[in-house]
């Protein structure tokens, strides 16, 4: 009904609602602000980019490798993000935890011949056991000592892998009778990444996330409020190890083989350090930040820097660039690139206000 006639001719003219229906543009904006939708959209865009790089000449093929390894390692970084940003603990054991995933897949699939998804379940179970052990230790040991302890644990795990079987090779995995080629692994990896993002976001904004934050800020206050430190520390470590383990299963799915003794293998110390750097660059309290940081550490080299002719001639400069980036971020944006982005938003709105004032003068009152 015409709004001018409502006062007099509406059906229930005594209480006419002044609220008009929302314009469509506003509704659309509301959907875009929904985090679950954002993550799904992100997954869709990632798959499109990967398809473009594989099937068409518009993007070089090197993009596929960079983006897919970003997606794999992002799962581990998100878990680390939860551990560091929300529970206030750090670990250098990510590399070792990634190995759990690789080796469970290898043993479950080659020795017992079970399916890939069952192998993931086994990987999760073993990761939970390791997470419980580290979680119990974290009750007694804190901060930097815990970091060193997890570093030692990671090296022990790596040596165990070396003794078990130095190099593993599972070839191309078969799922439901279909062989998964390297180019098709994205249909498994990207959906799992999106699911992990959604679950993590749900946890962060739930009472569990609040309890973890309370524990990080003050253990005493958290305990007085009925939060069991044992329970939530265990939870944080289990989530971290399980995510890293899933990340390992995805990596072995993509690569098909891995070697424990080489310095650049997935479960070497360098992986743990790279993930730590990724989370610090991206911002240790933001899921988007963790993914972007992982891209900087794992994907930027093959996607962008190698296509610049100067840098491809001097590959040693690439490491220097990422090192400088870490220093700059830690010095100026301790909250990571997520903080940088937030600051950028504020600056834009300030600029708009300034332009407005230059034209119309200051707002009165």
């Amino acid at each position, binding site marked *: *009904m*015409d709004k*001018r*006639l*409502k006062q*007099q*001719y*509406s*059906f*229930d003219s005594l209480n006419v*609602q002044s609220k008009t229906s929302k314009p469509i543009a506003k509704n659309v904006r509301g959907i875009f602000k929904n985090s*679950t939708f954002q993550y799904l959209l992100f997954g869709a865009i990632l798959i499109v980019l990967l398809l473009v790089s594989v099937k068409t000449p518009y993007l070089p093929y090197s993009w596929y490798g960079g983006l897919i390894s970003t997606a794999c390692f992002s799962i581990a970084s998100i878990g680390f993000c939860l551990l560091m940003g929300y529970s206030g603990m750090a670990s250098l054991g990510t590399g070792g935890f990634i190995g759990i995933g690789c080796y469970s897949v290898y043993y479950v699939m080659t020795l017992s011949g079970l399916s890939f998804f069952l192998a993931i379940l086994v990987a999760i179970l073993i990761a939970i056991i390791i997470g419980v052990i580290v979680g119990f230790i974290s009750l007694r040991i804190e901060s930097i000592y815990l970091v060193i302890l997890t570093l030692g644990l990671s090296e022990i795990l790596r040596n165990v892998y070396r003794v078990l079987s130095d190099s593993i090779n599972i070839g191309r995995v078969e799922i439901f009778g279909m062989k998964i080629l390297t180019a098709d692994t994205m249909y498994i990896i990207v959906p799992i990444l999106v699911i992990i993002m*959604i*679950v993590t*976001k*749900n*946890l962060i904004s*739930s*009472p*569990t*996330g*609040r*309890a973890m*934050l*309370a524990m990080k*800020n*003050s253990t*005493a*206050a*958290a*305990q*007085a*409020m*009925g*939060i*069991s*430190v044992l329970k939530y520390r265990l*939870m944080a470590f289990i989530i971290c190890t399980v995510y890293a383990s899933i990340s390992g299963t995805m990596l072995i799915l993509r690569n098909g083989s891995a070697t424990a003794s080489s310095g650049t293998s997935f479960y070497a110390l360098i992986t743990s350090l790279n993930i730590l750097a990724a989370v610090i660059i991206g911002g240790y*309290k933001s899921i988007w930040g963790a993914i972007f940081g992982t891209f900087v550490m794992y994907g930027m080299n093959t996607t962008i820097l190698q296509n610049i002719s100067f840098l491809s001639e001097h590959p040693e400069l690439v490491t220097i660039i990422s090192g400088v980036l870490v220093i700059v971020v830690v010095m100026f944006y301790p909250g990571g690139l997520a903080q940088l982005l937030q600051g950028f938003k504020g600056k834009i709105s300030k600029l708009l206000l300034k332009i407005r004032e230059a*034209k*119309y*003068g200051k707002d009165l009152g």
Partner: protein
Amino acid sequence: MAKTSVNSKIGEFFYSPASHLIKLRKELQWAIAEKQTLKDVYEEEKYKKLTAIKSKYDNLLAKPAFKACDKVEYADKVMADKLQAFDLKQYMQHRAVNHALTKAIFKAIKKGESYQSAIEKHQLQFKKVVAQREEFVKKLQKEKQDFLLKYNTKDCTEYDQLLAKLKDDYQQKEKEINLKINEKISARSKKLDDKIACLEQKIANVKTKIKHTVTLEKDVLLSVKGLKQYFGGLKAVDDLTFNVKKGEIFGLIGPNGAGKTTVFNCITRFYDATGGDMYFENKYGEVVNMRDFKVHDVILQGISRTFQNVELVKEVSVLENLLVACTREYQSNFWIHALGLPIVQKEDKILKAKAMNILKFMGIENYAGWYAMGLPYGILKKVEIARALMSDAKLIIMDEPAAGLNDSETAELTEIIKKIRDQFNVTILLVEHDMGLVMNVCDTVCAISFGQLLAIGTPEEVQKNKAVQEAYLGVEEE
């Protein structure tokens, strides 16, 4: 929930009546909460349904209403709306012109030139703006005349007929909806009643498995008996005994290092006391020994505390800080949180309403959405007290509530502490150095020194006590 005998310890590993009781009570609490809000929830549903029907009717009535309305009035309204929108647009133009003039004049004055030309230019532009408006008004008037030529009839019959018909229809539908909602309410409330009765029965059954042998004296809430806390050779608290009565404000005073905070930490189980017992009548009217509980289970018995240095979560809002105190009250578990099921939001909504009420009571509801980081210290202290109120505690322990506050804030705090005691029906136990606050607010004061009791009584009695004076001022030398 007293400790059962050693024989049943293995059994306790598989089934502990205490934790079972906690679970049952949580369920009962949520069932009661749902029963209380049942009517509001369905009322909302009913309101939504009715408004949907009404808006449907409005759409049906749109055409007849246009036929029935007074066309001259309608045209006037349309004209006024359009003119208003135009004026809003022109206002910004006007401002830009004025701002340009001001800038030009300032510039001319700075250079020492005359600004006559700027004013002339401004007047020219201003005239242009006025002319634009006149033109627009003329256009609108022409539109109005055209409109009136096109539609000049007024026909109410169709509208009246349709309205009468719809009104009958509406009454019928309203009756139907009411009936349906009432049925739903009665069915659900019956289910809830059954559930509550069942739970109460279960709780009574479990209670019989736990023996409570200790009874407290009349009106006593907390009884500390022979409390000892040794750190190596240091006797921080040595054989301390006192009783806290229900509904009083109990102050614990003493010189620095007297062991006041240690007593608090023993009661809230941060320290495992070397010896002695602390009997407490909990939320459910049972007398329990606090030594049987772990530190994070103390809040479930009805003891909550604040800290000397504000210990809030700085990265979340004030409202969410209050929700942290309710972590144990959520029925949903980790898996439900991970999947993000709507139950969590439902529970959040109920608890947020409760938190807002408490913030309103403390007079800081405006800060609900603010981040705790960067708020003034006085506000943070209030937020901490509000957080202690969230868990429906029976005993609130305040560790130096006035530390770091100025005089006016301390005076306000005195009022707040008294108000909390009266309104929430709680007992307050506080440690304080500010003697003014203690003497103003406390009903009973207990003075300790080197972990031993010096005096207990009303503030005046304790003030006159010689041992207390000596402890504070030192012994007079002759």
